[in-house]
């Protein structure tokens, strides 16, 4: 039997080298369709552009896309299928943090490059970071840190916090409290609400926050929870005297659903797609609108840039060998619709940033105004802290 297995192994090993760079893409398309359909359109556009321009490292790009079922267990099985049956060269994708971490862990075990496109958790590049995993989107820590300068300027003393009760909300809250307290030691946190993810009891939460009479609120709510919170807060007048800082609320995926409820003056991170007028963004937006007859969302940029990252790494490596790809991706500088980014060698995090601005209403729609681009390179802890977290 051993000889048989050896023969089989030999047979797979001597397969003719594929003339493509094969990316195995997996994501929770059925669980988070609102974010992931634009993401899919983003990577499809990039794929077409790259192949039209001749591919990368002398090969055409090919993407095999799968639904990962939205749970870590299913995602690991899907990733195994991509590795074992589809024989992909690179894994890419995932959305929720726990799914991303599980696939990153598998990538480390199976020794295959994994480009985590969407997950926000700090752990995927820090505590649970590994040699094979790289992450594109600005992390929870980075996006929280981006809001700190504006929060400090207001010199508010009494802060209330509301966050969805899972790792993203917890770590956003912890980072926010730590960073704010460092810079403004007299700050007081007067109330904290942690409703279950997707099931906020908005009336009671808004009432409890108002009861604490805060000067400002830091929130990491998103999607359904954000919509319910905004509507109740508007009705109950919570935002009249209180300024709110909300992670992610400026991303079209979340902002567009608020329409005429959009609360004016909130500080958010997001993506003001209609207003960014740099040449690289204009080119991307025009191409996207031409291809899909729709405007780009945050997910579109992430999907688009993720594929370009793999292609650029292959170009730089001149090979699709995993180890060479890893070395090429470390320190890779490349253009994106948001401008230049760098793939940090120290923790495999890209320096892709986000836009920080205030919410406003324009013709019954939510928009971001007075925004600035927060470069991801600026909002990082010290290298020493990162090495300690990565246990290096």
């Amino acid at each position, binding site marked *: 039997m051993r000889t048989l297995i050896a023969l089989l192994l030999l047979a797979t090993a001597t397969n003719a080298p594929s003339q493509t760079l094969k990316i195995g893409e997996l994501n929770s398309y*059925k669980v988070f369709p609102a974010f992931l359909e634009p993401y899919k359109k983003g990577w499809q556009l990039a794929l077409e552009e790259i192949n039209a321009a001749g591919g990368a490292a002398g090969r055409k790009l090919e993407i095999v896309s799968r639904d990962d079922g939205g749970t870590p267990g299913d995602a690991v099985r899907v990733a195994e299928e991509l590795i074992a049956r589809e024989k992909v060269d690179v894994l890419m994708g995932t959305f929720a943090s726990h799914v991303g971490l599980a696939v990153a*862990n598998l990538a480390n075990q199976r020794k295959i490059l994994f480009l985590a496109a969407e997950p926000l958790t700090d752990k995927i590049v820090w505590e649970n970071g590994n040699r094979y995993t790289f992450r594109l989107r600005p992390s929870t820590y980075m996006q929280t840190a981006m809001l700190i300068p504006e929060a400090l300027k207001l010199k508010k003393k009494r802060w209330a916090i509301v966050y969805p009760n899972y790792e993203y909300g*917890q770590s956003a809250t912890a980072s926010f409290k730590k960073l704010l307290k460092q810079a403004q030691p007299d700050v007081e946190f007067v109330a904290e609400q942690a409703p279950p993810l997707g099931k906020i009891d908005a009336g009671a*939460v808004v009432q409890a926050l108002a009861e604490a009479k805060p000067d400002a609120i830091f929130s990491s709510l998103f999607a359904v929870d954000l919509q319910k919170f905004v509507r109740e807060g508007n009705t109950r007048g919570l935002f009249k005297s209180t300024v709110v800082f909300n992670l992610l609320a400026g991303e079209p995926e979340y902002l567009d*659903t608020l329409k005429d409820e959009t609360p004016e003056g909130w500080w958010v991170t997001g993506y003001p797609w209609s207003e960014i007028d740099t040449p690289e963004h204009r080119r991307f937006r025009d191409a996207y609108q031409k291809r899909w007859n729709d405007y780009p969302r945050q997910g579109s940029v992430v999907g688009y840039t993720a594929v370009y990252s793999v292609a650029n790494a292959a170009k730089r490596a001149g090979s699709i060998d995993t180890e060479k790809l890893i070395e090429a991706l470390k320190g890779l500088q490349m253009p994106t619709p948001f401008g230049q980014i760098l793939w940090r060698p120290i923790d495999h995090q890209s320096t892709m940033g986000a836009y920080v601005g205030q919410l406003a209403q324009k013709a019954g729609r939510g928009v971001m105004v007075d925004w600035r681009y927060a470069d991801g390179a600026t909002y990082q802890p010290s290298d020493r802290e990162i090495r300690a977290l990565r246990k290096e």
Partner: protein
Amino acid sequence: MSGSAVLLQFLNGLAGASSLFLVAAGLSLIFGVTRIVNFAHGSLFMLGMYAALALEPHVGFWWSVPLAALAVGALGALLEALLLRRLYAAPELLQLLATFALVLLIKDFALWAWGPEDLLGPRAPGLDGAVRIAGSRFPEYDLFLIALGPLVLGALWALLRRTRWGILVRAATQDREMAGALGVDERRLFASVFALGALLAGLGGALQLPREPATLAIDLQIVVDAFVVVVIGGLGSIPGAFLAALLIGEIKAFCIGLGYSEFTLAIEFVVMAAVLVLRPWGLLGRLPAPRRGPGALEPPLAPPSRAVLLALAGVAAGLCALPLATGGYALVLLTDILVFAIFAVSLHFLMGPGGMLSFGHAAYFGLGAYGAGLLTLKAGAPMMLALLAAPFAAASAALVFGWFCVRLQGVYLAMLTLAFAQIVWSVVYQWNAFTGGSNGLIGIWPAAWLSARTAYYYLTLAACLAATACMWRMLFAPFGYALRAGRDSPLRAGAIGIDVRAHQWAAFVFAGLFAGLAGGLYAFSKGSISPEALAVPRSVDGLVMVLLGGVHTLIGPLWGAALFTWLQDSVARGFDYWRAVIGAVILLLVLVLPGGLGSLLRGRRAP
């Protein structure tokens, strides 16, 4: 909390309670009369939301509410006539499987019809503002809901107490077979009750629109909440549902008001567990009459015939030889299937021969997985030791929970297992330092000599064969006969000296033990474990596997696990709307093969 804050949170609680009551009332009616565990109730609620959203631009919000409710009620009548009516004579619980298939179909229908985005509905015209109460602004619409809850309760009460139809419904709720024997036309009664229940679900959904966006995820959320309310109140009791909704609404509002918002993650399950332990039939429920008639007859379980055993040995030999043909993905998929086969067989052990329905079997699967993970990561235990110890982590929890559960019956028992599972889940989900919180535990890999796919496959195969053989052996030992005697006739079994509860308790622990084994194997095959392993969908998956295979067959759960896991894997790859495809396949199987897959290849028939 100041006095005004107490008042406002009290009002918030009332508004929440009204919303809950509307959806729970319909579910309670349906269950009381037809005994259908209607998983699709949340889907009907969701359809009510979307329907109102679609109608609102044409007829305005206030007209869209009754129209949406009527539309959903009509759909309910249609579903009853076309689907559920065919299943009343089928083995109990098959309707549950059919309604689960409806959940999948309706979800993908909504995705197709309304798209993936969360849709925030309009505010209610005329009630879009707030009034000043105790110095704070309180939404007018919430006041309207607070008034509406008792109004609906009163209307239902009048309907049930003051009309002939109501008398028949109450008679059927109390003793369905007796009502039938006295000449009540069950068909019309069931159809009308199902339609009214669906209408109430649709009404609840439409009325919720000004408070929360329509999303595709709301169906399962709502149905679990509604079941909790119905069970706390007592199945079939409308005033009970109202009382329970009030209790849950107020407790939640005050948890938030007092700053303990983390508790709301599972507080309703804590309340439900407490109520069921103290009052096994809910707050205002009554002991239902025992089931009689064709659906209640359970065929005696026969040991597998020689031919079946030979066929099974052939399948096992084929599985042993498989790695000769492939070293790749087929082994990964089969490893998953074998793990779930152990899980399904353990659940079948509890549900079939044990006669104890469980909605929370994932707890033991998950505790096994976490037990293995924690021993490996925190205690540095060698892999084999962790794997062998994992089932005992699950079994010790089953020992405690089982003691409470076996004191209950039927759906009450099932809901208590769910309550315990959700409590365990919420602890695992929030205990960041120990269980890794929502991210779970990362880096649980098997020992080096088992890390190859083939090696791990053989380990799982051996475990699956051993576990299945062990459980089957138990079923045909005196223990198994006594267990089934207790299921079929607790009174007679007790009279001949069988301690029915002790046997049930033991079965509960054994089922937990083997589910824990499956969990441990699962953790090492994935390299990580997260709270999903012990969440509701995992329990539901187990139920679907057992029911697909056939709860009254021996080998059914194995086929069910294989088919369901394979379907999820292959259909998800081939179809965009894969949930709908799985739903359609399940519906087809339910209608064509009501006895389950296992009935195709069964043991000796009873004479």
